[in-house]
């Protein structure tokens, strides 16, 4: 193992204070593998260190909430013994690097978050932001992202029923790709991550592990050879076909009584999944890395623990069920391996070739993850414009024409026609309306789903913009006849170490909280994406809201189309 120099620490994204805490927790210098594990566990992405303080202020409870934030996805009761399981997640940076695969694997990741909990995914949505249409890269990014979302969702056979797209120059170097999945599960059979039972087997299923998306690692160590660049693509490639098999296999296994805990391997793969499972169950875990199914020869423990290969799951089974579970996985042509077992030590012990290659305490690492109260300044109020002071356009017909042709208002048909929005034969309201309506198979009910945010409002006045996004979501659901039940959010912002950006974040949260409280419309899951900046210029603050509502009688919904000649047209509201 190579030496842990200050450079190596810095390349792992840990600052001095954080590294001091690592030393305290370990009681010794960590080796490279252990440092890598700290690095991913304490990354912004996994630890929410800048945002946690504020996320906690969002309302998360209501009588119909079965599971709020903290699990893989939020769960709400939708009646007739069923639950809707949903979440939104960003894949912004990868999609900028490689739009097709970045967007595709974003869809794959959010699908796994949902079926991990025992829910069959029934709808996908997305919230996309691109730079100015004139910008040299925009066309390439748009077509790649749309093709990637379609390529993955169409193949797994989950309809993409809605979404939103905005264009603004602030996204020129930082596009946003937020993907949302909604699934259905029996309300009393929700699967969670917590690992339980000393000695119980830890199981790996799905695709093999390759050297995909290993962070910071390329530079971090002299032990990687010269062609490491070539060997270590930072882009993960999605395999929707395997994901489809994984969905079916996991749901089949979930019908048995064999699973104690299950967790998908998302960002930070094996590391975060095993830590989370052990930490939630208050257990220790021992992994035998020789057993991890690998796609390439000679993979190091560091690579195995930090790989972001897609389409993989980790589970803890009740003992004695291994053969049955293996049978199901093999029927679906998936890898299955017992890679370890639970212990009572509260530590994670990693072995390879008989040696202990890593040994870390679980709770201190998970619980002592940094949490920051970052300085922030309120966004200065802008002057209010009075509509009366603006010039009245001469030819309103021409203005209307211009508006309808503008990038942010024109038809999105060219996008959603590339998505299979009808597979599963339950899409009652296709894209193009206020919210998608998807029937709850086997009942008379339907779910209404929409994604919303207007970033230019958020930049002008974060609190009102945040509130408006929630209110718009609510309106879109009620407009099709649904009772809005809960939301998921995806908070996309710039660098939180800048007080103005942190101020936007705090403002948007404040507005969302106010609106959620006023509407009894709680937040049950979400995701945060920070550092969306290029050369010090941040994106518009973009708190994307994904809303879910229920329609008790699916026969009674409304659409946006005028259906009858001579019908009255009414305007309601202020």
């Amino acid at each position, binding site marked *: 193992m190579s030496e842990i120099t200050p450079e190596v620490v810095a390349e792992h994204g840990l600052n001095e204070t954080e590294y001091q805490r690592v030393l305290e927790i370990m009681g010794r210098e960590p080796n490279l593998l252990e440092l890598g594990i700290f690095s991913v566990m304490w990354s912004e992405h996994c630890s929410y260190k800048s945002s946690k303080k504020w996320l906690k202020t969002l309302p998360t409870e209501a009588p119909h909430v079965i599971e709020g934030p903290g699990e893989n996805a939020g769960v709400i009761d939708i009646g007739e013994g069923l639950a809707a399981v949903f979440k939104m997640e960003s894949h912004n940076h990868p999609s900028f690097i490689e739009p097709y695969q970045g967007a595709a694997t974003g869809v794959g990741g959010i699908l796994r978050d949902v079926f991990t909990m025992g829910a069959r995914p029934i709808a996908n949505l997305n919230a996309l932001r691109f730079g100015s249409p004139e910008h040299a890269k925009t066309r390439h990014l748009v077509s790649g992202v749309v093709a990637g979302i379609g390529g993955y969702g169409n193949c797994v056979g989950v309809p993409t029923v809605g979404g939103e797209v905005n264009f603004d120059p602030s996204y020129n170097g930082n596009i946003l790709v937020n993907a949302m999945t909604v699934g259905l599960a029996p309300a009393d059979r929700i699967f969670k991550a917590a690992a339980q039972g000393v000695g119980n087997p830890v199981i790996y299923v799905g695709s093999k592990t390759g050297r995909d998306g290993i962070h910071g690692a390329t530079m971090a160590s002299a032990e990687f050879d010269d062609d490491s660049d070539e060997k270590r693509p930072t882009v993960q490639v*999605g395999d929707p076909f395997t994901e489809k098999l994984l969905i079916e296999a996991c749901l089949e296994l979930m019908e048995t009584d064999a699973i104690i805990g299950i967790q998908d391997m998302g960002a930070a793969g094996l590391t975060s999944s095993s830590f989370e499972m052990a930490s939630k169950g208050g257990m220790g875990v021992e992994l035998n890395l020789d057993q991890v199914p690998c796609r390439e020869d000679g993979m190091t423990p560091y690579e195995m623990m930090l790989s972001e290969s897609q389409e993989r799951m980790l589970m803890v089974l009740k003992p004695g069920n291994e053969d049955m579970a293996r049978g199901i996985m093999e029927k679906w042509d998936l890898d299955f391996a017992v890679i370890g077992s639970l212990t009572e030590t509260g530590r994670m012990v990693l072995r390879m070739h008989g040696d202990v290659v890593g040994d870390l305490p679980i709770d201190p690492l998970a619980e002592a993850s940094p949490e920051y109260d970052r300085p922030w300044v309120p966004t200065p109020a802008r002057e209010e414009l009075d509509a009366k002071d603006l010039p009245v356009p001469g030819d309103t017909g021409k203005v209307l024409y211009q508006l309808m042709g503008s990038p942010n208002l024109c038809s999105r048909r060219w996008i959603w026609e590339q998505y299979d929005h009808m597979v599963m034969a339950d899409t009652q309201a296709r894209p193009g309306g206020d919210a998608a309506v998807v029937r709850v198979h086997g009942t008379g009910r339907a779910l209404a789903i929409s994604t919303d945010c207007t970033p230019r409002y958020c930049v002008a006045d974060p609190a009102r913009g945040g509130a408006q996004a929630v209110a718009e979501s609510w309106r879109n659901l009620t407009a099709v006849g649904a009772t809005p039940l809960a939301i998921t959010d995806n908070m996309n912002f710039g660098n939180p170490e800048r007080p103005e950006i942190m101020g936007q974040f705090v403002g948007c949260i404040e507005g969302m909280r106010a609106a959620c409280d006023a509407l009894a419309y709680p937040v049950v899951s979400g995701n945060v994406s920070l550092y969306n900046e290029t050369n010090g210029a941040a994106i518009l603050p973009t708190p994307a809201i994904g809303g879910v509502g229920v329609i008790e009688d699916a026969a009674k919904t409304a659409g946006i189309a005028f259906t009858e000649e001579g019908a009255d047209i009414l305007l309601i509201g202020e």
Partner: protein
Amino acid sequence: MKARVYVTLKNGVLDPQGKAIEHALSALDFQGVEQVRQGKLIELDLSESDPEQARSHVAAMCEKLLANTVIENYTIELAD
């Protein structure tokens, strides 16, 4: 002048197609196939007749369109 461009996935990049073909071959009882990788072959008819010119021309096309250099490599072969 004709050019053939071979576009292949970089080492270590997952190749779902290759993997599926591998499976299918073994299901069809073809034994002894250890790994399968799928790439593209693009054949171009060019009006250019100078090999050097043609090669640099085609390389530019690869960089710009034919290959996704984030995950793919390409090689160029010229004929006649």
